[in-house]
């Protein structure tokens, strides 16, 4: 990625997030396509690329992307699937940009769709888990983030009131987001957060996402083609960093460090920015402490300063650094492995000036982050950072 603005995001779509909504991943993705075509006025036959995220509901089908093309009536010259969990959405934009620049296709539908809460049979992740995780009984992400939170507290100290503030800030945003899951569209207080029951001490229920159904996507093309197509609005990816299995070979890696320490500076350097230049941030939020760590690791504050940074910064849509203005996954609901796209699409929506009562003023740029996968005894497997800017 580079700051030459030769690639454009010209449309976005998002379904409402529902709990056991009963619609399939195909139908949810179809709604996103329909929205994007209506919004941009572009003929669907102009779409010649598809980048799709893996799912919890359909991934047992080894031809998932191919069936999606068939179901939606698309005939792409370039088809690509991302198994990066919550990093798949932003990762797909970077990959689509590369494919467009290489002439493999012109206009890419980037989509993530997952009916995880409706489906009943999850794909098995296998590998070492049968031997060295399941017999111990630690429950996937919740257990790993319990261990991570405990270690962070030990090394740096953690102010629970900072996480409480994040919880309330995101919930207030969800109340203004009609696409947020109805079950979560009720106000909460900091007291509610602090009294929330422990699921994996010291991790609380209100630290965590609720798994739902939903889909989201964006349309990516070259800026030149966007102009030819008569795109009404466009924004540009100007910086991107990604790393998988950060320090994976280091047996004694500090688990309070993450791949954002590499991906963040890389994205910022490409964008010719520092954290102070970022107008708003849509960080991946499977658990609240992931937001705190993301802010530290990308350099919005120093290591161990996350609690104070959160307490001293207005993170509301009206604030100095608006954060997850549609509620984040924690308060809008996590649409399965389409969860990473929820905050991405909100960034695009804000920059298009279409966020309604939660609209950020001067939405000139946005940082979006993604997290994917839970490795053995660490924090997360994939970290990516995307910076978007207006024309």
């Amino acid at each position, binding site marked *: 990625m580079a700051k030459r603005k030769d690639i454009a995001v010209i449309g976005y779509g998002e379904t409402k997030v529902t709990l056991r909504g009963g619609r399939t991943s195909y139908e949810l993705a179809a709604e996103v396509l329909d929205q994007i075509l209506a919004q941009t006025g572009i003929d669907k036959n102009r779409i010649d690329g598809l980048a799709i995220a893996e799912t919890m509901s359909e991934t047992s089908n080894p031809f998932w992307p191919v069936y999606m093309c068939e179901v939606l009536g698309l005939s792409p010259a370039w088809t690509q699937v991302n198994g990066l969990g919550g990093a798949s959405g932003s990762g797909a934009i970077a990959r689509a940009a590369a494919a467009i620049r290489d002439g493999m296709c012109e206009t890419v539908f980037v989509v993530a769709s997952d009916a*995880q*809460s409706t489906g009943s049979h999850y794909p098995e992740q*296998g*590998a*070492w888990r*049968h*031997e*060295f*995780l*399941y*017999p*111990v*009984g*630690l*429950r*996937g*992400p*919740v*257990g790993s983030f*319990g*261990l*991570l*939170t*405990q*270690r962070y507290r*030990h090394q740096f100290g953690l102010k629970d009131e900072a996480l409480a503030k994040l919880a309330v800030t995101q919930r207030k945003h969800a109340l203004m987001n009609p696409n947020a899951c109805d079950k979560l569209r009720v106000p909460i207080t900091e007291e509610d957060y602090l009294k929330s*029951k*422990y*699921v*994996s*001490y*010291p*991790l609380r229920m209100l630290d*965590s*996402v*609720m*798994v739902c159904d939903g889909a989201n996507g964006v349309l990516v093309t070259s800026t030149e083609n966007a102009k030819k197509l008569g795109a009404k609005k466009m924004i540009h990816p100007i910086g991107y960093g990604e790393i998988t299995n950060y320090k*994976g*070979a280091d*047996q*004694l890696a500090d*688990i309070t460090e993450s791949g954002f320490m590499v991906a963040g500076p890389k994205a910022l350097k490409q964008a010719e920015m520092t954290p102070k230049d970022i107008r708003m941030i849509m960080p991946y939020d499977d658990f609240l402490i992931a937001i705190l760590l993301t802010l530290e690791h990308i350099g919005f504050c120093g290591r161990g300063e996350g609690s104070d940074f959160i307490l001293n910064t207005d993170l509301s849509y009206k604030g100095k650094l608006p954060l997850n203005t549609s509620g984040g996954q924690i308060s809008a609901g996590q649409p399965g492995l389409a969860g990473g796209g929820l905050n991405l699409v909100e960034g695009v929506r804000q920059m298009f000036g279409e966020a309604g009562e939660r609209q950020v003023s001067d939405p000139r740029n946005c940082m979006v982050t993604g997290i994917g996968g839970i490795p*053995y*005894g660490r924090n997360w497997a994939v970290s990516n950072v995307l910076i978007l800017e207006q024309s």
Partner: protein
Amino acid sequence: MSEAPKKIPRPQPRVNAYMDTKPFWDAAKNGKLVIQYCKDTGKPQWFPHPVSMATGRRNLEWREVSGKGQVYSWTVTNSPWPGHEDRVPFLCALVELEEGVRMLVNLFNCKQEDVKIGMPVKLCWEKLSEEINYPAFEPA
């Protein structure tokens, strides 16, 4: 997280599920904890990998370790993996062995209020079946 899982028995380890781990389970059955070492660099690694984490080569051997370590982090599991419902609440920990690897294990013979990061612990075994001894740790 999403919905109450159906009640299933506690999952037993599936030996050799992703690579040849039989040396580990054979040693465990005899009350010995073995982990892999890279023969080129002398570096230990856990969990078992089909290549050296240091070199990417397959020049590995299994060696017995002391079973002594300390708690690197811990959590109380209230929302367990399916099959562990009858055990809640229970302690899970990352234990750092003095040889220089970390293991994800259960902590036994220890109350939540007594666990501390840095606390010395030692190996004990949980007998899951006639064939399977599973490594766990307790206060040293």
